[in-house]
């Protein structure tokens, strides 16, 4: 495996959904003979633990990489980052089918505020593209996009200064057979932090009472013990003031890592205004449920609850006006 080739990793869906499997197979079949590409198939990215062959394979990939998975691109990117598979985020031009028509209009509309997170550390000089297999039902859309990315990566390498060292001594990653890569993993459940949004406020660390969170050597928040997490519980993600915590397999897009902040695309959920519980209450209820299940006492809103979130000051009035006016402009 050379640094001058593009590694394409197809991460399969959980379960045996025939439509999903067919899409995966069509993409793999179309790309496998393509020159300059190394195509591999691994199980669902989220389920791979540190011992899984698929994960070891990913860790061994040195150059640019495209990862196609049944996850939001943001979730897949930060999931890989946590696994030590780091790179600069490549920008895909693939848009969800139903958004393509609205694409031009959306581009002109107000962009969401840029996130002000602490960012990733130790990012090597290579690019990782994450594509969401749910965006299209036709495999050709993905095949075309991978070709485009391959050309983009090649152009980027050509533009960079020529390598001073021939790749003779570059350690080659261990080769794995497809069977090894595809060992079925067990289902896993844990939070994934988007460090482009995370401000290191530590509210998740205070809130979670199951020892999932810790800090790394640089005092940055870390999902330290992933498998301490309680299956199905997304409470910490509701508590996060920056929408930086994702549960990639959660049913609600906002928590599963859908694009944040855009008024278009994602629909606004008004449940909280129309009588649903607020996010903090929901989070505390979810946490209590898991505490009781563990034979511990429910704590309600008495432990690890951010005080300042209760009454976040609103922005200046004119900005609020703009928002409502923006809603007007969105009329179809």
């Amino acid at each position, binding site marked *: 495996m050379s640094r001058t080739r593009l590694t394409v990793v197809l991460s399969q869906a959980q379960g045996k959904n025939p439509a999903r499997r067919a899409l995966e197979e069509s993409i793999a079949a179309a790309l496998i003979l393509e020159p300059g590409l190394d195509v591999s198939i691994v199980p669902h990215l989220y389920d791979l633990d540190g011992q899984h062959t698929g994960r070891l394979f990913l860790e061994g990939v040195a150059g640019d990489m495209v990862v196609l998975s049944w996850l939001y691109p943001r979730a897949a990117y930060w999931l890989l980052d946590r696994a030590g598979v780091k790179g600069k985020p490549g920008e895909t031009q693939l848009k969800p089918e139903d958004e393509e028509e609205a694409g031009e209009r959306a581009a002109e509309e107000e962009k*969401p505020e840029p996130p002000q997170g602490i960012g990733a550390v130790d990012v090597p000089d290579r690019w990782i593209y994450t594509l969401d297999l749910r965006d299209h039902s036709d495999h050709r859309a993905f095949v075309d996009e991978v070709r485009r990315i391959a050309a983009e990566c090649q152009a980027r390498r050509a533009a960079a200064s020529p390598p001073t060292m021939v790749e003779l001594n570059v350690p080659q990653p261990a080769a794995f057979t497809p069977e090894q890569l595809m060992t079925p993993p067990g289902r896993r459940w844990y939070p994934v932090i988007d460090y482009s949004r995370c401000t290191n406020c530590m509210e998740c660390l205070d809130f979670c009472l199951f020892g999932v969170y810790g800090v790394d050597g640089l005092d940055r928040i870390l999902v330290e013990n992933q498998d301490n997490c309680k299956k199905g519980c*997304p409470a910490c*993600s*509701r*508590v*996060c003031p920056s*929408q930086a915590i994702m549960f990639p397999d*959660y*049913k*609600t897009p*906002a*928590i599963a890592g859908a694009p*944040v*902040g*855009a*008024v278009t695309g*994602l*629909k*606004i*959920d*008004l*449940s*909280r*205004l*129309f*009588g*649903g519980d*607020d*996010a903090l209450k*929901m989070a505390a209820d979810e946490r209590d449920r898991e505490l009781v299940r563990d034979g511990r006492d429910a704590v309600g809103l008495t432990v690890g609850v951010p005080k300042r979130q209760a009454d*976040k000051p*609103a*922005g200046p009035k004119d900005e*609020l*006006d703009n*928002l*409502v*006016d923006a*809603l*007007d402009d*969105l*009329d*179809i």
Partner: protein
Amino acid sequence: MADDCVFLMGKFEARLPGDLLYARTHMWARPLEGGRLRFGFSAYAVRLLQDVYFLEWRIEPGTDVALMEEIGFIESSKAESSLYAPVAGRVEAFNAELLADPSGVNADGYGAGWLFDMTASPADLMDVAGYEAFLTTAWEKTQRVIKGKINEG
């Protein structure tokens, strides 16, 4: 009879008829004969939703519900929401016309676009002045939800 009110949502004027009662779920209520109450969306709610194109109820007519129990789901061009019981009582009937074409919510929200009838006590509902005061305090929270700053789910 109280006068009609207008609540300003930015530059949009939400009209609130003075002869109706209001619930915190942003629904109006009109007392009918036989102790029933008819509910529908206030102009404030309709404004947040904009063009409604899907409405579904998760309970059958004749079901007793608790206050704030989840009873349905609504989706519009810009938003979606679960729907909650505005008061405790028995939901007697749903507006069948809306189930065929929910755009009635937008066309005539205070009339033909009513949502459901309940047998319930109006004791906990607000008058128009109370609802206007409630909206004034709820407006900030509304802005935060619209801005997508809250992890909802």
